[in-house]
């Protein structure tokens, strides 16, 4: 998914304009001539300069359009599906892992992604059942990381 350099420059310009706006509330340190907003604003002004250069370069080379060039993968259903499953799976993990627990979420994620990547189910199912258990044991038991138990809290080991 490629944006034209002109659009990219415009987005970066908007970001650099947002920095001084967000820095307005920063309090100056008494007795110091340089406040907490100085450095981010300096970086933002350099970013704005680069954004303008990017837009000028695009204008000079005549590469203003297309504004958005969708990648080849966006036209292919299997790749699109795998991307959605991968990103959606991570987001669902963020939202549900506390309630569902690491192991159930891990099993669901591995099953969904394995099948989306067109792997044979004979490989996907055992891997999805075993890998979360092994990773859980390494991190929870070995490294004492408090991975959430969620639905399995009754049988936590």
């Amino acid at each position, binding site marked *: *998914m*490629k*944006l034209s350099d002109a659009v*990219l420059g415009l987005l*970066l310009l908007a*970001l650099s304009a947002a*920095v001084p706006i967000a*820095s307005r509330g*920063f*309090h100056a*340190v008494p007795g*110091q*001539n*340089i406040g*907490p907003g*100085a*450095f*981010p604003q300096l*970086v*933002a002004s*350099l*970013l704005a300069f*680069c954004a303008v*250069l*990017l837009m000028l370069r695009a204008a000079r080379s005549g590469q203003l359009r297309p504004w958005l060039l969708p*990648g*080849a*993968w966006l036209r*292919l259903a299997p*790749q*699109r599906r*795998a*991307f959605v499953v*991968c*990103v959606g*799976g*991570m*987001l669902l*993990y*963020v939202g549900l*892992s*506390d309630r569902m627990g*690491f192991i159930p979420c*891990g099993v669901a*994620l*591995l099953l969904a*992604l*394995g099948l*989306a*990547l067109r*792997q044979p189910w004979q490989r996907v199912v055992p*891997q*999805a059942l075993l*890998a*979360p258990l092994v*990773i859980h044991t390494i991190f929870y038991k070995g*490294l*004492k*990381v*408090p991975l959430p138990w969620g639905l399995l809290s009754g049988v936590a080991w």
Partner: protein
Amino acid sequence: MISLASWTQAAALLFDPYVLAVIFVSALYGLAVGAIPGLTATMATALLVPVTFFMAPVPAVAAIVTASAMAIFAGDIPGALLRIPGTPASAAYTDEAYAMTCKGQAELALGAGLVFSVVGGLFGTAVMILFAPTLADVALRFSSFEYFWLVVLGLASAIFIGNASPLKAGISLLLGLLVACVGMENPAAQPRFTLGVADLMGGIDLIPVMVGMFAISELLRFVVNTDPPLKVVTQRIGNVFAGMGGLLSRYRWALLRGNLIGVVVGIAPGSGSDMAAWLSYAASKKFSREPEKFGTGHVEGIVEAGAANNSALAGAWIPALVFGIPGDSITAIAIGVLYLKNMNPGPTMFTDNPQNIAAIFLVFILANLLMLPLGWLAIKVAAKVLKVSRAALMPVILLFCITGSFASNNAVFGVTLMVAFGLVAFLMEENGLPVAPVILGLVLGPMLETNFVTSMIKSDGDPFVFFTRPIAMWLAAGTCLILLWPVLSWAVSKIVLRQTHANNHAPPPSNPP
């Protein structure tokens, strides 16, 4: 200079069964990740960071050093057998190595890659042992003004030494510096750009960002990949050490040049093993007595560039240890680990904890020596390792990434950061914006701001002091030269063009009557 007592203490720290086991397991892990195409040495290092949380400082650093050195070498294996570099550091001579395999010389290509990687790694380590402590003595005299310029010099080099367009690399770097501004970790301890999220008060956690930008983005690129699956060359590989003595004496000068290029490129901030390999391969071809053989399966380039990429790895640790400025993206990650382990890099580490510095030097020696037998083993089982399906591995890697990002703060917010930065890195790379400068900006941002603000307070707001101190002045001149280089080269080329144009259109000299 590091005292004998510190070396003895370091040896005691290192030759502990637990530390040796960590080194051994990290070596196997680095070899496996490096040998699988598409999984880079940087990704290997980023994925290892969450595990190093739970280790003492010395084994944690040992794990990072060993895994990265092994991964850089192992990248040669799929390069020679599949024509696909395992890591970008092997890309420079992949075609050459594959051409040798096609000629039935796979063992010579892989053997040269292994033996000269070890030689390069040991050379880089020797330079580090000799020069890092001396440089640290000089660095002790530096104040905030010199550090400010050193950081700017590092960041400027990161923009211009790379494959991406300098403008886009600069944009990536500035984005990294802006991300580094989030949170309260600034000289005024003012919460900045936290958007009211309490988890952002402490700043953006480096580990989920690195896992997201290097591992998740790679995973996303894999799932949308439209290339056909890889075909594995199954070929019996004979004795990889045969003929190495002959190569060593025949190409001794090329080897020395490769080692030197590697160390120098490694020391230059922002450029790592891949750049070292490309430069030394080009130098090898330029100075070779048989340049016409390059590209047809000639081992000379592999000898030189194979040594260069591993000596660059050690070279990159010199500015990392002495100034806290990473030489490449792997050392940027390593610096994060050093801070986490309270081994704050900088010249004072050489005076306060010389045993830790000596331990890092010893780890480099040990890891490079271990590369010889384990690398041989990796080559022997290469055909089997390369058959492992990446599609089968990727879901498990994703779960490791999630667990590692969660473990950085024991909070699911780490996973949120990982997803966000993974997506950002994926989109950035699709648009030609390199990812490594973001990490450099993120690591160096707080250091840059602190030194900038401290210097401005010291100088009572007078920016000219940045240019008047003797060392600072030279560093400033170097930085300005690097930053203005594109403008200078453009101006020179314009003048030359105009002169050529004028000469071509000048009226012919009239014949004397």
